[in-house]
């Protein structure tokens, strides 16, 4: 399996990305990593990382999309950017998946422009698995679309349902809409409009509005929201877990094992759902361990044929 890694994207690129690739090449079997970026820079980094010489090759890309650039417009101007070239490697059959810690909007737009979305899906969403006491809750979107229309939330609900079926094996997942109250009348205009459409949608097990705490209550298998709220929620969770860890540490309690399910470093990344390919979005602040886990996540998505499963599940409700 060949995985294209955008080696220039991220707060700690390229050093930590290369370190993560070297780790993945050593630990994951039957994979070839294609590190995409400046050839000379990446060769130097590989030397610094004591690379064994196996499992990695470099594909040169001369441009980088910075974190503060306007995603879609930057992609037009920088066709030789590491994220665009990585995505094109999948389109041309030279890789099976993309992993990036770079500009999320650019990663989403690259997948959208190069691969396209499934029928009936306008924009991809990032879907992540939130660990709860006795399982997981799928949450989407956690950052690809800051502003959404009601129709897009409906599409996210269908994608979330399909992802829960594919990733969690839940046959008829309950799909909730994140709001500031359970009642139908609660929410902003987009949420109210989405609720009205979702409750009449056939083929969807709509659980109504859910609240933030329901990410952990098990009331819904899938929680749908826009990328602004979704991203804010996961960042709050990261901060809260750090705070709890520090307090337990002060009390002499080793919480690492207890909290490891919530450690974004261990989760690695989350796939873009709705596009015709595997693109795993990693935290911009990812260091080597997170990069390694993001690559492992991409391998799982390919091994489980996530894209085909998703398309199949979506086709059933279309």
């Amino acid at each position, binding site marked *: 399996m060949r995985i294209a890694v955008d080696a220039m994207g991220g707060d700690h690129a390229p050093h930590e990305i290369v370190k993560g690739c070297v780790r993945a090449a050593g630990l994951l079997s039957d994979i070839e990593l294609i590190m995409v970026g400046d050839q000379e820079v990446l060769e130097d980094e590989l030397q610094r990382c004591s690379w064994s010489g196996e499992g990695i090759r470099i594909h040169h890309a001369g441009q980088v999309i910075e974190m503060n650039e*306007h*995603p879609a417009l930057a992609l*037009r101007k920088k066709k030789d950017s590491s994220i665009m070239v990585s995505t094109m490697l999948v389109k041309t059959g030279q890789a099976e998946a993309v992993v990036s810690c770079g500009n999320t909007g650019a990663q989403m737009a690259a997948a*959208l*422009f190069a691969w396209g979305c499934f029928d009936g899906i306008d924009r991809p969403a990032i879907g992540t698995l939130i660990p709860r006491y006795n399982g997981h809750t799928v949450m989407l979107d956690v950052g690809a679309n800051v502003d959404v229309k009601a*129709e897009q939330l409906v599409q996210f609900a269908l994608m979330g349902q399909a992802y829960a079926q594919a990733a969690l094996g839940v046959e008829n997942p309950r799909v909730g809409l994140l709001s500031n109250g359970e009642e139908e009348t609660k929410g902003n205009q987009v949420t109210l409009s989405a609720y009205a459409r979702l409750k009449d949608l056939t083929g969807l097990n709509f659980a109504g509005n859910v609240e933030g705490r329901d990410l952990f209550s098990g009331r819904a298998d899938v929680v749908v929201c826009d990328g602004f709220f979704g991203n804010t929620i996961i960042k709050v969770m990261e901060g809260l877990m750090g705070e709890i860890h520090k307090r337990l540490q002060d009390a002499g309690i080793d919480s690492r094992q207890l909290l490891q399910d919530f450690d974004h470093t261990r989760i690695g990344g989350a796939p873009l759902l709705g596009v015709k390919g595997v693109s795993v979005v990693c935290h911009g602040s990812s260091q080597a361990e997170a990069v390694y886990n993001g690559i492992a996540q991409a391998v799982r998505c390919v091994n489980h044929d996530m894209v085909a499963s998703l398309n199949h599940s979506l086709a059933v409700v279309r």
Partner: protein
Amino acid sequence: MEEFFEQARKILAEQLGMDPELITWDTTFEEVDADSIDIVEMLMALEDIYDVEFPEDNLEDYKTMGSLIKALYQVIGGR
């Protein structure tokens, strides 16, 4: 140029799920909630139809449908 404009607004309207008649020369992209991805997707569709590559410069400077279409029309040389 009218035909070019018609093509463009048809593409954009389809992407946005709205009536093409609601998009005029003076319509701003903000008014119809078209973001940069919608605009780039429209450009890519027009590039396919007219077999041309539009320059990448200053796309963000065009606020109305009309101003962008006039600029693009110069690139296709009035075909």
